[in-house]
Structure formats: C-alpha cells, structure tokens
C-alpha cells in the first residue's frame, strides 16, 4: 500500500496544476464567448443576414428608413438588413408575438416598454447592456450622456439592465389655432390652470376648446396619455415600487380637472383622432397630441389658419410629458453574429447624423442632443421640433411592466366613468387602482 504521505505532494501539485489549467481554460472559454457574443462581427467576412420587424410604413417613414438602411449596408457590406414593414403598431405587436410563439422571430423589432417587459418575461429578447457598455463596440460614456435623459431611462427594465435601444421617439405638444386665440384676446397657456381659463373663454358660439379620445381599455388613446401627463405635472406618480398608483390625490385632481372642462363644454370626447379633426375644421382651438402627428395636423388644417405648436402646459411639478414612440429589441433566437450585426445597425440608427435625418424626414424626434447642431437649418423653419425634443429630457415612457397595458386600460375606464357618465373621480380611480393592482399581482 502506498503511503499516503508520498502521494500527497504529488496530488497537491496535480491539484494545483489542474486548478491553473481549469482557470486558463475557463478564461479562454469566457474570452471566446465574450468575443463571440460582443465582437464576432468585427472580423466576420461572411454575409450576415438580419431582419427588422417595424411599423414605419406610412408617409415619409418608409423611404427614410430605406435610405438609412441602404447607407448602413454600404458601410457594412457583410451585413444584409431585411425590413419587415407592418401597417401599424397593433399589427406589429401581433406579428412579433406570433413569430416569437412560432419560434421564428426576426433578429430585431420595434417595441414599447411594456411589450419589451412581456418579451423579457418570456425570455424572448436579450439584455443589451453588454453591447452598450462594451469598450470596443459599445457607446462611449460621453455619447451615452448625450442621449436625452428621458430616453435613456426608457431603455431599462426593472432588473436594471438595458434591454432596448432608442429609435423613433416623440412626445406630447400642444397644437393651437393662433387666429382663434388672437380673436379672443387670449395668450398661449403655459400652465394647466391657464389652459382651463383659456379653454373656457374660447368655448362659445357652438365652438369648443379641445377634443380628445380616451380610447378603450383594449386601446387607450391620447386622452388617457394626457391624463397621465396631468398626473405627473400635478406631482403624482404612475407606479411606485413596481406597483400601480392610479388613485393618488394628484390623479383625483387631474381627473376632476378634465371633468370640469367637460362639464363646461370646453372638452368634447370623440373617436378616430377627434382632436385633429376638430382643430382642422376650425371648431376647436387646441389639440394635445404627439409631435409625430404634426404632418397629419397640418393636413387637417389644410392652410385654413396658422397652426402653431407650443410645449404641453405645466403643473406644479413641471411638464409631466409622456413619451411616445418605440425602442428596438434583439430577439433571443438569433446567432451571436446576428446579434452583433443587429447591434451595429441599432447603434447606426441612433447616431447623431442618422437620428437627425430621421427626425427631419418623419417628424419624430432626435434621440440624442448631439443631433440638434446638425438640424439648425431645419429647426429654424420647424421650431416646434426643438420644443418637443427638449421635452424628451423630462418625458417618461410607459412603465416597463407587462401589466401596464391593463393598468392603463383601467385608467381609461375610470376616465370614461367620470367624463361620460358623471362618476366621482375618487371612486372611479379607486376602482381602477384595485383592478390594476390585481393585474400587477398576477
């Protein structure tokens, strides 16, 4: 029997060697994996095909995205981008869901924050923090800081990781009929209190101040988003500690404010973009909608009156603007090379030059402050773009929770109860909060 003591040192040496070998192998594997995940495309010469499912198919959006994509492909000859255009966001979501469920998602897709949360819960998308902060292929800290604060905050899910990258962002502005205000001797309102005063003053001779659509629980519309802005402007919150807060005193006050406008006749409710229609027809004085809707507002006006754009009114807590538009996510069922190529494309689209071009062509907003100097001549003729872009600093997107869709719908229901049926704001919001909380708790 071999004395144990003799083998001890040999075994110990072997053990130490094995540890070193294992450590080296692990380091190599980690290095290769990291390279494969975040740097593979740099040296890949074979063509990498990626697909982008998007809803930028109307008006100037399609040619603008086509142009940017061609520019990207010219700069990256080994990457081929296929655009899969859908007619609207509703169809886009259905197509993305169906492709994920079928196990054949695109490489990347546009997504709202709550869509991204659902996809992440189902492990259908990947976090991109590793790409964003990668020293070689990521975005420099200085460039990250150029991204509007509101837009940057919008890229994270509650786990603290970056899951989305910004693309077509917009926020809410106030369109108004300058002639109507001038005729009534009214100034452009800067606060919600002023807005109510001006709105009531303009409600006469069968005309009114503002039309909006609350939407439905299945599809909340502008009216609900303005309500969310009012809550924020009044110092309220939408969520706290990962739970909805729809019945705060600020929310009750905001809904009471809208109910008062409705009661006075200054606010009229409708469907199918009623604000645009009423403003364009010269019957109302204001429309509160996204800046991306500017071409449509202009078309509705048809040159009948000077339609101007101002910042959304503020409350005691500032503007409280709600952000609209989507980000881009990378789907899980993709190769490392595709992910790396997709990241290059996403980074390209958000570059100062490209986002400036996108904004000028489509009416969306540049996602980074660095784009504004490149847009000087455009902003000179379209001053509202700067107003809206600066609001991205404070604007907030949908809370990134899958249940938010339902909570927002509950808020819409509360609004309908109060504005259409004369219900009590506190009671309606308490009911909405109860339902939203149930949805949040699963």
């Amino acid at each position: 029997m071999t004395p144990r003591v003799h083998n001890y040192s040999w075994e110990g040496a072997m053990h130490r060697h094995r540890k070193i070998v294992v450590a080296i192998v692990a380091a190599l594997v980690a290095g290769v994996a990291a390279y494969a995940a975040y740097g593979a495309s740099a040296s890949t010469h074979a063509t990498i095909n990626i697909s982008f499912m998007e809803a930028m198919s109307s008006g100037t959006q399609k040619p603008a995205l086509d142009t940017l994509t061609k520019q990207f492909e010219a700069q990256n000859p080994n990457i081929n981008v296929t655009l899969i255009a859908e007619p609207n966001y509703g169809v886009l979501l259905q197509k993305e869901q169906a492709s994920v469920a079928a196990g054949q998602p695109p490489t990347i897709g546009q997504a709202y924050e709550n869509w991204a949360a659902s996809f992440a819960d189902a492990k259908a998308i990947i976090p991109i923090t590793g790409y964003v902060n990668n020293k070689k292929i990521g975005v420099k800290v200085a460039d990250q800081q150029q991204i509007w604060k509101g837009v940057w905050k919008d890229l994270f899910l509650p786990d603290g990781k970056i899951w989305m990258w910004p693309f077509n962002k917009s926020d809410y502005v106030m369109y108004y009929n300058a002639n109507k205000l001038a005729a009534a001797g009214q100034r452009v309102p800067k606060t919600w209190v002023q807005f109510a005063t001006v709105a009531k003053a303009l409600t006469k001779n069968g005309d009114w101040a503002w039309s909006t659509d609350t939407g439905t629980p299945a599809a909340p519309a502008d009216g609900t988003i303005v309500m969310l802005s009012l809550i924020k402007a009044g110092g309220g919150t939408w969520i706290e500690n990962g739970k909805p807060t729809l019945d705060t005193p600020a929310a009750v006050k905001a809904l009471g404010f809208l109910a008062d406008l409705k009661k006075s006749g200054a606010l009229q409710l409708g469907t199918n973009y009623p604000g645009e229609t009423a403003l364009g027809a010269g019957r109302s004085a204001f429309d509160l909608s996204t800046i991306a809707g500017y071409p449509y507002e202009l078309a509705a006006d048809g040159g009948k009156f000077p339609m101007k754009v101002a910042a959304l009114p503020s409350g005691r807590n500032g503007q409280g603007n709600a952000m609209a538009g989507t980000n881009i996510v990378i789907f899980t069922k993709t190769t490392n090379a595709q992910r790396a190529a997709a990241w290059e494309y996403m980074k390209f689209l958000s570059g100062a030059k490209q986002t400036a071009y996108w904004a000028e062509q489509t009416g969306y907003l540049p996602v980074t402050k660095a784009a504004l100097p490149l847009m000087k001549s455009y902003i000179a003729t379209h001053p509202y773009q700067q107003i809206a872009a600066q609001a991205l600093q404070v604007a907030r997107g949908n809370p990134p929770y899958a249940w938010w869709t339902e909570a927002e719908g509950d808020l819409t229901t509360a609004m309908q109860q109060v504005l259409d049926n004369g219900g009590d704001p506190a009671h309606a919001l308490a009911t909405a909060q109860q339902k939203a909380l149930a949805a949040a708790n699963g």
Partner: protein
Amino acid sequence: MIAENALPPRRVRAANRRGIRDGRFAWLYLSPALLIFAVFTIGPALFVLYISFFDWNLLNSSLSKFVGTRNYRDLAHSSDFWHSMEMSAYFVGAVVAGSTVFGLGIALLLSSRGLVRRAVRLAVLTPYFTPLVATSIVWVWIFNPQFGLVDSLLRLVHVHQIGWLQSTTWAMPALIVYTLWHDLGFTVIIFLAGLSTVSNDLREAARVDGARYWHEVRDVILPQLTQTIVFVIVITTIDSLQAFTQIYTMTQGGPLGATTTTGFLLYEESFVFYRTGFGAAIAVVLFAVIALFTLLQLRVTRSRAN
C-alpha cells in the same frame, strides 16, 4: 339488399370490389380538403381546448403551467364574462329580430312588382358585399357627434347632440344599426329564395277569395316560410355570436364595456392582456354555444330536405 342478393355471387363480389375501390377514390379526392380542415380547423380547435387547462404563456409555451379547470372556475365567477354574455344576448337578440323582420319585409317588397324594386334591391344587397372594416370606419364618421351625418340631421330638428359611440346607452344600438345595414342583404337573399317556393296557386286562391295583402302574407306566405324563417334565425344567431370586426373597428368593446360581447372579450383577454388560457376557456364556452345553434341548424336543414 334484395336486389344484391339476387345477383350471382361473382357479380356481388365484383360489385363489392368496385364499391371498395370507389370508396378509396372518394377518400383520395376528399383528402386535400380533409387535410386542410384538420390542420386549420380541427387541430386549432383541439389545441384551444388543451390550452384552456393551462396558465398559458403565449410567447414561450415552455413556461406554461397546468391549472386544471381553474380557468373555467374563474370564468364562472368573472363579472366581465357574464357582462359580456349579457351584451352578446343584447346584440344577438336585436340583430336576429331586426334581420328577420326587415329582411322578410324587404324580400316581400322585392318579390312584388313596383318601380322602386330595383333601387331597393341594389341598396339592400350592396352593403353585404362591402368590406366590414372599410364600412365600419365610414359609420364611425356617420356617428361622429360633432361632424357626423346622424347628429347633423338631429340638430336640424333641434335634438341635442348624442355621442353615439361614446355613450353607454347608445353605443350598442349604433353597432346594431350598422350590423343590420351591412348584413341585411344576406337575409333578404334567403327570404327571396324561400318566397320563390311559396305556391302561387294558394296566393291567387286567397286573392280570389278576397284576402287583402296582409291576410295573404299572414295566412298563406308565412306558414310556408316557417322553415326559411327558422333557418335565418339560426344562421343569424351564429353569425352575430361571432361578430368581431365591427366591434373592434367602431368601439373596441367600449365605452365601459357597453359593447364588449363574449367574442370581443375573448380577443381582449387573449391578445391584449395575455391571459391566453382564460381566453381559451371563453373560446370553448362560445364554441359550445355556437355548436348548439349549428346542431339546430343541421336539424332544420335536414327536416327541410326531408
């Protein structure tokens, strides 16, 4: 059987072989249709039944959890579900009654001679061939409280503006009016076919006996149209229970659930709020209700054929 037994055994065997061969060919010819039916109808229907027993994750089925009959128990206690059943009953009842009464009335008008006949036929039949989505959007504008045709006409007679699609009272009637406008052409065609089978001899006999038109309709035409009327009621009920497009386009189930029928609730739960298992349970219940009416229709059709 007697005739077959009377044949020589060799001929019987040949006939049997031919029968088997013909049967095989019949299945061969039917197989493409059966395959399509199995893949796109039977398969998905069975899959819906399967997922109704799960807390189903639409995006990643591997994360789904078996919950037994919980979705059905939740359904039984869901106020939203029972409200949607009430709304479905309201919608179906009004559409079926309207389709039957107006469809029959217009068919009677079209079967008689008159100058307006062709114009009415065109006016009634054309909407049925138009796309639901497109005409729904047109009707959204017709019902627009500020700029719509209906309110403009009402204002002429000093009636206060009504938010047709924004009002919990008026949204469902507005939806019913649109559905009747769109679908009436179909019931008119069925009634016209039924009227063509009514005995002219009996009608003439009634007229000779001095019956007025109303008596002729009540005592001669309607008794002979009973099976057609039942058929129209059954088929319209099934169609109305499945109505979705106009609800989606015009009201999205609102306001305050005033137009949320069971079919729309199914969509909302499954594809808006991602409660796919619960939505599947609604689909199974809706399927059972529709299956009942389909069986009824089959019986009516069979008795009609007999």
